[in-house]
């Protein structure tokens, strides 16, 4: 009897040892708590205005009577709390200068909606979002979590945007501003020296005074002459080059080139196609590239023009006078680290995944 009990006990223990770890599995199988497909965000699409659009929708859904439009049109002063508990204030623009709550207390605890053009004094901190129905001029060292400007927005020296900024017209960021997250403008953007940025988008992005900088003059001097590049044809007009490619000044090459080594493109050259280097690429002054530029490290000297996307997998330096994309062909410029000298003009988006800066050195 004792033997039978002992055997049963041992058998039970063995079953427990194997079965107990499976209990959560069996419970989950029955409850189906995680039986859902992975959530794939099918609405965001990487759209740079995503947060701005969501913010505007949030505002409109929280203003029912009066509506946001009515508040703005009639200059209504309001104060209250949104459904999610966020405090807000609608400020009528009776004066052109917004006043801080107290001279010592610089932090604004509410979400602020300015219904008219306004100037914000220096050093204020907006811990919630800001919506400006018309132009807004943020004083020096203003700090905003996020800002939606329906008119023009000017950020004075040293202003900081923590999450995103979107402007329906023109954005001007003064020297030393820090634009974390997304910054977008529907018309144009003027970015001052020393500005740090991550993701910029506008049909026209001027890094300081591009229009006054010397324009690229690729036709000056000797016209480019066709150069035969010793490459292996991969397909159509695409050639592989196993080794480095060193093009002399005033070269003209036609086709797409995949270079397994480093690339140097001499002054005033012209590439009628795209070019890729698996190592370092150095594009010298006055070069024009019709297609895209893909590289590991990339330096683009002054007065170059590149029409297609410009991608570097480590770092990129762009010198003054360069034009990236054009009005008809907006493009993307992307790298983990980007240094853009004042005087560069870009059309489309400039995206530094880690850090971008106007002028200076890359600080990792």
């Amino acid at each position: 009897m004792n033997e039978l009990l002992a055997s049963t006990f041992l058998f039970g223990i063995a079953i427990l040892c194997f079965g107990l770890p499976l209990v959560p599995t069996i419970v989950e199988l029955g409850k189906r708590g995680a039986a859902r497909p992975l959530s794939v965000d099918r609405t965001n699409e990487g759209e740079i205005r995503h947060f701005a659009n969501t913010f505007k929708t949030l505002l409109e859904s929280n203003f029912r009577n009066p509506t946001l439009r009515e508040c703005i049109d009639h200059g209504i002063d309001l104060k209250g709390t949104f459904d999610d508990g966020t405090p807000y204030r609608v400020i009528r623009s009776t004066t052109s200068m917004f006043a801080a709550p107290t001279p010592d207390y610089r932090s604004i605890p509410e979400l602020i909606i300015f219904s008219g053009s306004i100037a914000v004094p220096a050093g204020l901190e907006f811990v919630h979002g800001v919506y400006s129905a018309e132009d807004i001029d943020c004083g020096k060292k203003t700090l905003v979590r996020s800002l939606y400007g329906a008119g023009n927005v000017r950020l004075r020296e040293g202003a900081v945007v923590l999450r995103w900024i979107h402007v329906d017209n023109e954005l001007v960021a003064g020297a030393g501003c820090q634009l974390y997250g997304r910054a977008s403008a529907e018309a144009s953007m003027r970015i001052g020296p020393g500005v740090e940025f991550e993701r910029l988008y506008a049909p026209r992005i001027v890094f300081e005074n591009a229009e006054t900088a010397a324009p690229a003059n690729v036709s000056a001097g000797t016209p480019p002459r066709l150069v035969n590049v010793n490459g292996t044809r991969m397909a159509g007009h695409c050639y592989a080059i196993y080794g480095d490619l060193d093009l002399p000044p005033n070269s003209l090459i036609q086709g797409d080139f995949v270079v397994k080594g480093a690339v140097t493109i001499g002054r005033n050259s012209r590439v009628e196609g795209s070019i890729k280097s698996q190592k370092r690429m150095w594009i010298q002054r006055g070069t024009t590239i019709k297609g895209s530029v893909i590289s590991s490290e990339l330096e683009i000297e002054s007065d170059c023009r590149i029409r297609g996307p410009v991608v570097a997998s480590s770092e990129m330096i762009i010198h003054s006078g360069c034009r990236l994309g054009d009005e008809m062909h907006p493009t993307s410029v992307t790298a983990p680290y980007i240094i853009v000298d004042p005087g560069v003009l870009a059309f489309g988006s400039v995206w530094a995944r880690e850090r971008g800066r106007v002028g200076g050195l890359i600080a990792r």
Partner: protein
Amino acid sequence: MIALVIRCGVSVVLVVATLYALRHYWFTLNRLFGSQLHPYVDIDTADWPNVTVLIPAHNEEVVIAQLLNALLKVNYPVDRLLILPINDRSEDRTGEIINDFARRFPNRIRPFHRQSGEGGKAAALRDAMELIDDEIVLVFDADYIPGRGLIKQLVAPFFDPGVGAVMGRVVPWNVGRNCLTRLLDLERAGGYQVDQQARMNMRLVPQFGGTAGGLRKSAVAAVGGWNTSTLTEDTDVTFRLVLAGWEVVYQNRSECYEEVPENWYSRIRQIQRWATGHNQALARYSFPLMKHKNSSFAQRIDGLFLLAVYAMPVLILAGWLLALLSFYIDGESLSGILSMLGISAYTSVGNFAPFFEIAAAMHLDRTRRKILLMPLNIFGFLVSLMAVTQVTVSQILFPFWRGSFIWHKTERSGNRAA
């Protein structure tokens, strides 16, 4: 002498199997702690090129409409996107549904009714490619549902002139149907989120999966077009592109929903088809890959491992048999015992390296609760093991079998997740 041969055999199996296991662990650690490579995902503004989307469809009446509807809603410039559904000898309402869409959207959808000719997806794609002029071609199976931004994401890498093919991430949407779909969800997550992305990070050989991806038409033409004598035209074209110096890019953030098989019979047929095709590619491309001077050493080794992935179950089986033989022939000696111990140790630890990838994928996807089903994955693993072993052994025993391959189409349910 016989004992020595057996011992050598066991050692070879153990070394190869251990390398496979280490590869899985290496990939997982890279994905969790290494630097991640997504070079083209930031290209959001560009002068987008003309693109044709091919949809090979054989008896797809249940799912084709949802794919066409999804493609009509994408944010790609309308005048630069042509949708070309291939009604490949369908006997159901697929052709009728495609015609209805083409009538309503005449400038956007151009149907191709393929009434005769060779069977199989590769043949359908080959014939359709002859009808188009666009350089960039995307391919979607009929049960896929792309998001609005997916086309731009898949086209962006082609701005790199060295890219021949692009693959997006496949995410099952009928996860909640039954236990099998939930297990396949885990398997897909491990395979894409960890395995493919790690290969991309380490610049090895990400695989073009034949759907939710794209190809450069001139590159495919330059390497000989679609191979209709294989059951996995995707693996075949991947390796021909790599051998010709083209890059295959994996984009983990380009996610696309798919329907996974909902019954074991479909699943077994699907994995047997993959195994057959992969083994064909192993026979064709392993030696050219090893001799390929323009690929790095790591690429060649990883490519070989990728090609041989469906031969591994047979190798493990052979290892077990040899270890048993060694034990009985050579049981008195240390080597016989070590053979058994080695194979047992591998079966206990090394065999489950892919499970480590799945766990990491759940962590990265922030769906940790799904990990509770991990123990059940052993059943899926065993079923795959048997199915793959069956076809691989038949391929080894009948190596000269070159008859026309039978394309077993995966059944569709069209059901949304429960």
